[in-house]
């Protein structure tokens, strides 16, 4: 047994060397028309060898390591505790959520402009993740083209403002409804498909939308994108230094305060906050309504749910449409925040990031998804020197989560009743 262990460990170490040494150890460099091969830094090569040694040691003493790991959960003080009582937990969760919202309300007035801008982006991701959470977490439909609906919302606002001069407040419902409609039209045929096929079809659809946006130059401006998207107004008050549209007044003149660029940023942030809270509340309601229960039932066991009389298409379609609707919501806010959009912002990677947020937070759990969205957007900003490793870490985190904790960091707990233990 021991010899076998060592042989396996040696094999694993050699494989580690094979898969890391050629790619990490040599750098291809283009010098004019020729390509040159240069050796990597000594530190990289040392790291590769150390990795191989680490794999060898781990595999050779795998059993003892696993034994140690088995003891580790005892170090976690919460592991032995009884799970919190249902009503208490729900109360705690609402308090935490309310606390976050109250904190978020005062936040922009004490921090720098850059932080508020980042926080607006976090809120957009929260909206997206909450919407995708309905589709993936609750209804169990893996949607890899979610970013397409985000793009529909953003482009609706951009195009309408360019051609008809529509304002943000008009565009918000139109963008969301159009995105929802797109979701419905796409969802109608594809929702019959089995889970993994659905994932690939939505991925293909997302790519098709992006390619169309990129190539339909006369309408969308192609890769150059669309600029000059107006900012939101507050009851006809503009936040710019000069009024752009006739009939509007400007915010700083109305209130007799000095003009400051920060007003606009804070206002956008507050709009995003309100919309994110609305999104969370509406979805929270949906989760408790019959349709929300139907989503989960269908996710858990399709055959059983259908035999109880649930219409598969209607239930799935409602989840898909609602998810798309909120993506359109977020898209409109995004277009307004950036003032400029191009197909670059709607690549598959964006879908993958949103999916990673939902997966990390715990599929179906709202609090988990919100916290994950905050973490995933802010952490790379805090550790700028590691920002190029961001996607690498995301990928690894998705794999590790699926292997060790597929229910996510803060898993959703269903409302349930337990009988008291007898005796």
């Amino acid at each position, binding site marked *: 047994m021991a010899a076998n262990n060592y042989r396996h460990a040696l094999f694993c170490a050699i*494989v*580690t060397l*094979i*898969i890391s040494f*050629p*790619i*990490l150890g*040599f*750098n*291809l460099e*283009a010098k004019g*028309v020729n*390509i*040159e*091969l240069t050796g*990597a830094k000594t530190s990289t090569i040392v790291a590769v060898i150390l990795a191989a040694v680490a794999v060898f040691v781990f595999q050779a003493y795998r059993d003892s390591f696993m034994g140690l790991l088995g003891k580790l959960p005892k170090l976690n003080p919460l592991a032995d505790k009884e799970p919190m009582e249902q009503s208490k937990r729900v109360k705690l969760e609402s308090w935490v959520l309310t606390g976050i919202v109250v904190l978020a309300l005062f936040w922009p007035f004490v921090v720098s402009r850059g932080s508020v801008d980042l926080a607006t982006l976090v809120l957009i991701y929260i909206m997206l993740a909450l919407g995708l959470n309905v589709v*993936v977490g609750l209804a169990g439909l*893996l949607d*890899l083209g979610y970013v397409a609906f985000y793009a529909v919302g953003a482009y609706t606002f951009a195009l309408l403002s360019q051609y008809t001069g529509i304002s943000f407040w008009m565009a918000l419902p139109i963008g969301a409804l159009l995105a929802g409609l797109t979701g419905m039209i796409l969802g109608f*045929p*594809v929702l*019959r*498909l*089995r*889970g*993994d*096929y659905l*994932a*690939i*079809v939505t*991925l*293909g*659809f997302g*790519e*098709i939308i992006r*390619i*169309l946006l*990129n*190539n339909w130059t006369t309408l969308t401006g192609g890769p150059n994108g669309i600029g000059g998207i107006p900012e939101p107004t507050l009851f006809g008050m503009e936040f710019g230094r000069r009024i752009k549209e006739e009939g509007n007044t400007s915010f700083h003149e109305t209130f007799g305060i000095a003009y400051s660029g920060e007003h606009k940023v804070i206002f956008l942030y507050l709009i995003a906050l309100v919309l994110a809270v609305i999104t969370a509340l509406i979805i929270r309601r949906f989760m408790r309504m019959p349709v929300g229960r139907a989503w989960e039932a269908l996710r858990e066991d399709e*055959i059983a749910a259908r035999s109880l009389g649930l219409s598969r298409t209607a239930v799935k379609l409602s989840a898909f449409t609602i998810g798309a609707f909120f993506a359109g919501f977020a898209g409109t806010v995004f277009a307004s925040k950036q003032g400029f959009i191009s197909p670059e912002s709607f690549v*598959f*990677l964006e879908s*993958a990031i949103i*999916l*990673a947020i939902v*997966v990390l937070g715990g599929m179906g759990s709202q609090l988990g998804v919100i916290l994950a969205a905050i973490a995933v957007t802010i952490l790379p900003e805090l550790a700028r020197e590691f920002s*190029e*490793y961001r*996607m*690498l870490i*995301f*990928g*690894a*985190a*998705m*794999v590790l*989560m*699926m*292997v060790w904790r*597929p229910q996510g960091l803060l898993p959703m707990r269903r409302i349930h009743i337990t009988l008291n233990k007898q005796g």
Partner: protein
Amino acid sequence: MQDLLYFSQQLINGLTIGSAYALIAIGYTMVYGIIGMINFAHGEIYMIGAYTALIAITGLTALGLAWLPLILIVALLCAMIVSSSMGWAVERVAYRPVRGRHRLIPLISAIGMSIFLQNYVHLAQGSRNIGFPALIEGGFNFSADGAFEMSLSYMQITIFVTTLVCMTALSLFISRSRTGRACRAVSQDLGMASLLGIDTNRIISATFIIGASLAAVAGLLLGMYYGSIDPLFGFIAGLKAFTAAVLGGIGSIPGAMLGGLILGVSESMTSGYLSGEYKDVVSFGLLILILLFKPTGLLGKPEVEKI
């Protein structure tokens, strides 16, 4: 005559690309046939194969080796070894621990792996695309009256011949060898095969290794054919190859070959007669249509869902 030559040119181009797609598609279809999951990271393994081949070619040329067939064979072997080790490792790390869980869990794990590998190469080799030297140059030219020349390059012939050799070898392996027989048994019924004494874990590993080595072959061939590679080029190629696998009927090896050829031809016809920008739209559209109307593909067997 002119039109016919133009058409045959598109046909040749399409068959070239298509046969390379078929090589990648084998990896998808074999894995799906055995464990029923979409190996999303397969496109990245193909990309890593192309990178390794380029590194080997550049290194060997720098060492002063000049005999082309030797360079190509050594590069091919290096690419196959690295890719198949990668395929094996990916299965061990990301797929085996989640095998048998809910369908979405392995898929999400595979997407994570795909993102990881893409960025692994991106960080190690940079994100710019790198020129792949055209080692095999020249070809035959046919012309009717000198206006339009149809060409069949040696590179295209190499792709055809290599694909043909690989496919024949694979078919023989699957139908004749002991491991191949075990592969077929496992794809029919994993539980039963394991009861009959087949080491299913080994067979699954073998499937990943075979798929990855064929992807490495495609990586070298397509890298040379396109003339440049970058860390993202595995993603789209992987999707195309998956489309090919679904088109032919996922789980069926002859289906993957047929699907690859059909996809390649329809793609080159689109770029030849419509516009090159929309060729991806056509292949994804094709994928969506097939999944909607004939999810079992052209040569696939219908899947019965048991309760």
